[in-house]
């Protein structure tokens, strides 16, 4: 590979404008695609509020549509006057250190969890969009774990906490400044069935 050289001079530049005509026919079928669960954890079939569609095109690809159902309802955790409605913990660049200013929020949620042993918290890690998606998923997880450890120190057991990561998937795209990136580097506190 010694002679790997960029040919920076563009020998030719060619644009092939492909015909963009939508004539794909997608008949409706009345059953969503079946889901088999082969993992050890319990899992329910995804609720397809949109019917699965299939294309008459031939390369043998069957289309599946998913829609997750968000349930909403009365939730004391969301009382805007309660500190429990505060759900965001922000991080410095390349850091998973939980800053002291978030201690009141973490203490309030820890108190709630200790008082409600059936409540299950989900800590959702997030990153800015720089870097690769899977690695950012791992970085977001590390932040979620860091927050979980703060809860552990306050006596909350692991069976009430799940740490997950969205990586960069929920990041505000095309950040122009550091404040925007900063807003993406956070752990969100959520509760099961919220």
């Amino acid at each position: 590979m010694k002679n790997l050289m960029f040919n920076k001079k563009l020998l030719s530049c060619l644009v092939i404008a492909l015909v963009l005509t939508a004539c794909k026919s997608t008949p409706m079928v009345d059953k969503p695609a079946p889901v088999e669960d082969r993992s050890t954890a319990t899992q329910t079939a995804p609720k397809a509020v949109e019917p699965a569609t299939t294309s008459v095109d031939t390369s043998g690809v069957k289309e599946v549509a998913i829609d997750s159902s968000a349930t909403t309802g009365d939730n004391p955790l969301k009382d805007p006057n309660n500190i429990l409605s505060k759900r965001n913990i922000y991080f410095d660049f390349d850091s998973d250190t939980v800053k002291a200013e978030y201690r009141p929020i973490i203490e309030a949620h820890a108190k709630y969890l200790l008082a409600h042993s059936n409540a299950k918290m989900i800590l959702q890690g997030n990153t800015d969009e720089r870097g690769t998606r899977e690695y950012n998923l791992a970085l977001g997880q590390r932040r979620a774990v860091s927050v979980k450890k703060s809860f552990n120190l306050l006596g909350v057991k692991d069976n009430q906490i799940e740490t997950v990561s969205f990586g960069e998937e929920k990041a505000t795209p095309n950040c122009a400044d550091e404040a925007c990136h900063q807003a993406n580097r956070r752990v969100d506190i959520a509760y099961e069935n919220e």
Partner: protein
Amino acid sequence: MLGALLVTTTASAALEIEISGGSAQQIPIAIVPFGQAANVNQLDISSIIGADLRRSGLFRVLETGGVVSRPTDTAQIKYAEWAALQAQAMAVGNIEVLPGNRLKITFKLADVLKQTQLAGMEYNITPSQFRTTAHKIADVIYQKLTGEAGIFASRIAYINKAKGRYALQVADADGVNPQTVVSSNEPIISPAWSPDGTKLAYVSFEKKKPIIFIQSLMTGQRTVLANFKGNNSAPAWSPDGSKLAIVLTYGANSQIYTINANGTGLKPLTKSSAIDTEPTWSPDAKWIYFSSDRGGKPQIYKVSSLGGDAERVTFEGANNLSPRFSPDGKFLAMIRSDGGSYRVALQDLTSGQGQLLSEGGQDESPSFAPNGRVILYATRIGGRGALAAVSADGRVKQRLSESGGDVREPAWGPLLN
């Protein structure tokens, strides 16, 4: 009637392709418009074949408009006319309508200088197989004239985000004929082709956390491969398709596991307190390469696929991520960052020498074409995701962008026969 039917199969194009650069020595080839009956005259098989060859950067497709004769078989070729065009090779063929809504496509490849036939094929197809057949003909030409396998009939998978919805799509290698495999209003990432090309593994956030699914392309049937506490991500098929390397977290940092493709036999592979992720198998299945920050910044490491101690692989570049093997196992493509920019790099695993291949700021997800000549990757153009490809020698570059879409996470599928 037949003509009208055929038009629809060629019309659902979505990705636009822009090519720059080219090999120093391009093979001049004439693709003579195929003979065809009046009821199939909307088809232009020769332009699909020509576009495939041109896109490889290895061919100069000659303008044939100035030549009066239109041979459809080698016996009709007046070689002097084509030698005058400087053609070294030429393709001729014919499309015929058969009863039962089928087509017969014949194709011959000739050496203009030696005046001999290099290849001859006949395809009896349904109208819906028309584009695939054109790509197969381009593959035959490419293989005969370069000695390497063609990739035009292979397919690519990628995620297209449009109007807030995420779709895992599969398209022909030229970006035409995109079909949605699965769509969701939550993110989908990390599509990975099974080695036989019949299934895709991917990570879906439809349950507000990353879960790995495997989906059959033919039936649409989805199975959950891994839904353990914490994250389930980064699926990578073993070369024989029997297992996958995956990344799980439970309540701690990302670690690599192996699991049978049917969801049984979960085994931990790495045990560190650092991040271990983005696994990929060596083509001989002996090693799993992955990214890890166990040394501080992320670098590529390797571990036996049976487990054991990990060994560092990359030393050039401040950060190295997303390792991917060339099909012959001799090169490793990866994403390298020395500061602000993330770019595709290629490392020769024998000599250890590396080379940057892309020039973007946020390039991601390198994926080798099945013949190893081209690396497909995700880039950003005007704030939106687009796909790009670069030849492994860095000479030929292509960009594929979808109007109105945000395209990312490409994965080049295997050769199918």
